[in-house]
């Protein structure tokens, strides 16, 4: 049987936070997409989606990252990233960032449309719910704000999680409420950010699950920072790590 992704050239959009802080996440995605038959490419020309700049009001710097993004990924059939927020930023912002730059705009629009979160690529393009993972633990899912309201992943992450062997999914109350990260918000409004993260971490710890997962390491960095400080037992883990797991019971 031909693997579902064979013949597809997939650009791996690592994202800046993962490249620097969580390299194992894009590594696992590269291996998973390879197993599914894709030709995975990762250009060193990539930097970032640009939202750190754009969302803080520095549009010129945001535009420069769009140029780097186009440089890195033009020619790919799809660009796939393990971050709903970064993917959402590409799709939502690259078009208007380049609107006054006709030499970039067309390519930015085309590339944005081909940029997908890992969960979208698996379910919508490959039609795969079950990636053959096994993770015999209890897990609660934090649906990041951008996954819900910008990238609009819907229930895709949950469909993938439900197909993981041995995994017990525990509902998180008020799952759609923000964890307080907000990019530079966490630096510009630290007290509010910490108060929000503390309240989210409490709700997560109260589920009694062993792991909290999300489609974004940035949210997990924020929530996990509080959980680690409080020496909570529950541990953050990226969705891609669960989907790559072969751990048996």
């Amino acid at each position, binding site marked *: 049987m031909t693997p579902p992704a064979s013949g597809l050239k997939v650009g791996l959009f690592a994202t800046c936070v993962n490249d620097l802080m969580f390299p*194992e996440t894009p590594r696992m995605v590269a291996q998973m997409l390879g197993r599914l038959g894709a030709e995975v490419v990762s250009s060193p020309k990539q930097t970032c989606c640009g939202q750190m700049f754009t969302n803080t009001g520095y549009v010129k710097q945001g535009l420069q990252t769009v140029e780097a993004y186009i440089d890195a990924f033009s020619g790919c059939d799809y660009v796939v990233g393990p971050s709903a927020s970064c993917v959402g930023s590409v799709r939502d912002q690259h078009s208007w960032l380049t609107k006054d730059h006709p030499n970039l705009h067309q390519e930015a629009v085309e590339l944005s449309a081909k940029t997908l979160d890992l969960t979208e690529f698996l379910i919508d393009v490959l039609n795969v719910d079950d990636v053959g993972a096994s993770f015999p633990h209890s897990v609660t899912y934090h649906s990041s704000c951008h996954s819900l309201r910008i990238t609009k992943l819907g229930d895709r992450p949950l469909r993938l999680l439900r197909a993981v062997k041995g995994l017990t999914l525990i509902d998180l109350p008020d799952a759609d409420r923000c964890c307080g990260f907000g990019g530079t918000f*966490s630096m510009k*409004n630290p007290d509010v950010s910490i108060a929000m993260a503390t309240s989210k971490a409490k709700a997560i710890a109260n589920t009694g699950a062993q792991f909290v997962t999300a489609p974004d390491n940035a949210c997990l960095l924020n929530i996990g920072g509080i959980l*680690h400080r409080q020496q909570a037992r529950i541990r953050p883990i990226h969705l891609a790590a669960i989907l790559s797991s072969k751990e048996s019971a």
Partner: protein
Amino acid sequence: MTAAPIVLPRDADGRLTPAPPPGELIDMPRFPVNAKHELANTEQIGNLERATATIRGKRAARASEVANWEELRSAAEAIKNKVARNLDHYLLEAEAKLTAAGAQVHWARDAEEANRIIVDLVKQTKAPEVVKAKSMVTQEINMNEALEAANIAAWETDLAELIVQLGHDRPSHILVPAIHKNRHQIRDIFVREMGIYGTPAPAGLTDNPTDLTAAARTHLRNKFMRAQVGTSGGNFLVAETGTLVVVESEGNARMCLTLPDTLISVVGIEKIVPTFDDLEIFMELLPRSSTGERMNPYSSMWTGVTPGDGPQNVHVVLVDNGRSTVLADPITRQTLRCLRCSACMNTCPVYDLVGGHAYGSVYPGPIGICLTPQMRGLHSAVDLSLPYACTLCEACVDVCPVKINFPEVTINLRKDVADHKRHDHRPHLETTAISAAGFFFAKGSRFTLMTKASSLFGRLFGWKRYFKGHTPWPAKVWTSARDLPVPAKQSFRAWWKKNHERS
């Protein structure tokens, strides 16, 4: 019939009405400073969380039962956009219809001019006081204090506005201004203050909501019965008929609109809807979005003067106060669609924790951080900080009945703040840091250098795994409460190069 002249008592400060907290909202410190102050008030956080969770649930239930809810939102958006594009035409149409119906129309460029007009109108009646229907625009122009300065008492008659006024406080929400108070606190305010400004609270008043409401009713009843002048805002002004609309829950606005002989309605120029038929869309959207009710208990509509029935001197003050400046930008003028329903702040996780007082603005929450700096301009410390009082979680986008794209406006305002910082000839750490980061993020090759530095750092501190505080700026902002993982010893790109680019 001429009543005996009323002589109003003065309080210990020599005032007719309770003094609000000193200072102007616009002079408040930056949002993060105010927010820190509010976060220390744990009783308030509890009050807010309970109230917003309830109202969020009610709104969601009432919106989800309308099959064509999304179509209604789109229709409302389209109508309000049409109003914005043709505002000059509709305003003149409204003025002509109001005048023909016996109302007098006054135009006010700003708060000062509006207050001057209102004070003059009240002085002409020789009345020492006005009864006020709840209105946001009169809060915006600070009408109460302008009247007090002219020795005229403005009595809030909305229950929550009354609580706030008697509490020497400021509203913290546009729909439920006393949302930050619980019933024990309200009882204490009534017992302490009512007697100074009118009918005292009954002896032995409990904190039972029914008793509190009865005390407010008794306190207000005297004021209603003797009032010669009423003031109101307006939720809508129908251009084709000159009809003003006020929707409310309590019936107190209805008293203000019908009992006094003189009625002064203060209305923002964006409150226009073109036709009476358009109202049906907004009357469906507004109560469901706002109080989470299928319809609001009282809807008052009036068109100028009806001889022998209700107020015989009807004035309408149309207020700009920065709105035409907002109108000038085709992208960010969408905030003028706002109906003041409060759904955005009820769903905002930032508002939920800090409450309305942190915003230095009568409009808090998502609409406040957009509209206030737009109307007042990006000049004061608080206005320059407001566009950043948001995580861009976009929860507000889903609930806005007129589909305001808050993050679009917010990011545009942040761009203006960043430009302002670049051009004010003062050093800004943020601008320098972001420009430096921008250099490294602009090209993959430069970013690779950055990952090498970061990995070196990771190897040096790798034994720690986490930074747990005692870090230098900017990391210390993060590590005051959150542990921060040490950067990876090998970046993703280094791993990729090693494993995929052998040659």
